[in-house]
């Protein structure tokens, strides 16, 4: 069971959360000008890295707010938790935040 630190509620069990997949995928603004390839890339293509991954989480059975996390996809260790809009590179590491 993962221990996930909601930036608003603190550390809670994995079963309270649902994962929203890769974070920081911005919807293109110039939608009229997009090619089918660019639309496909935005909608479907994913980084899916073997290593550090920034992803969205929802504290579904808690405060019901979204936040972002950085997690290693092999060890599953969380390295950062940060609120939407916050700069992940400026966020403290997970050890310090908890």
């Amino acid at each position, binding site marked *: 069971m993962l221990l996930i630190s909601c930036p608003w509620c603190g550390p809670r069990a994995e079963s309270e959360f*649902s994962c929203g997949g890769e974070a920081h995928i911005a919807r293109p603004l110039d939608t009229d000008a997009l090619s089918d390839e660019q639309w496909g890339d935005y909608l479907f*293509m994913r980084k899916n890295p073997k290593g550090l991954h920034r992803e969205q989480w929802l504290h579904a059975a808690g405060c019901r707010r979204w936040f972002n996390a950085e997690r290693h996809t092999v060890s599953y260790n969380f390295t950062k938790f940060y609120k939407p809009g916050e700069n992940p590179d400026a966020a403290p590491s997970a050890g310090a935040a908890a």
Partner: protein
Amino acid sequence: MSNFSIFALARNAMSYHENWQKQWRSPAPKASYDAIIVGGGGHGLATAYYLAKEHGMRNIAVVERGWLGGGNTARNTTIVRSNYLWDDATHLYEKALQLWEGLSQDLNYNTMFSQRGVMNVGHSLQDMRDIERRVNANRLNGVDGVVLTPAQIKAMVPIMNTSSSLRYPVMGASFQPRAGVARHDAIAWGFARAADRLGVDIIQNCEVIGVQRQGDQVVGIETTRGVIKSKKIGVVAAGHSSVIADMAGIRLPLESHPLQALVSEPMKPILHTVVMSNAIHAYASQSDKGDLVIGAGIDSYVGYGQRGSFPVIEHTLQAICELFPIFRRVRMNRQWGGIVDVAPDACPIISKTHIKGLYFNCGWGTGGFKATPGSGWVMAHTIAQDRPHALNAAFELNRFNTGHLIDEHGAAGVAH
């Protein structure tokens, strides 16, 4: 290399089975090949076998970073069926099922393919409407299937709780009699041995660390055992497809998730078919050894660690215990996870890419085992002819640009 037969068995019994030949060679990689398959699981080995058998190519290598069939080939619940909803998917999986039916003879290897039927249980009126629609679609496509009532289910599987007091009562099921299970190891080993006999070099402990290109043409791979040149490279790397694609500068619409399964202690025969339920998310069969083989769902997050999370096990076993109250006291023996590459439409990608000579066979997600021979068969055609076969033309990578997705979540969502 000698054939396996009853006579070979008797002959080797005389020498206490100490003189069986190795089933395949372990050659050092050559400097170049006509084609290289990256990934020595069932799909990759099947691809190499059909390249050699159907397309006359002999100078082929299969490179595998671990050992043969040590990934998802050994980590699934061995269910084989073809009762998908949409025509494109049904035709592909039905081709695979037809290959399964002759596979033991073809490979001279006992795949222990047992057509004991697969039952997909419905728990709501909408489930039953979907089941009836899917069975009708199957029959129009020449795939066998019937809709069962709860009384018929009870007659077939007396241990299933079909009482109306269940939280999610059993309201009926679809049943495909030709579906069943097979022996997972035998698929990898059978394809490896048959491919090796046709001259395919199977190279284990050889991890790909780079893909070499000249312009828009692929020219080779860098591996932990040196550079191997080839102008045709088929990547059949399942959960690690995105990792290889990243080396080649290609983006794939895949996310890799851990998918879990578990087996119980062995018991006397009690469950003679495969029972699956999409709605309550559980499926079970009993292996010839006697242990229950139980499949769970995927973890919701991207993961490459070959293990699963406890909440998923708990969720699955709740459903199994509800459906089969007699199993409540059964102890579980082992649990494991495999990394499945899930595409947005739960359908595979068997495709050329914008790099010449680089082909991908991935995205099988939670249901690749059943397709192993068919997957290799169409992938071999795609590589040899440099164009997809009619059976996989709809499964090109560019469907994510055209929007022609094949939404099989209804038939593939849980079912493996």
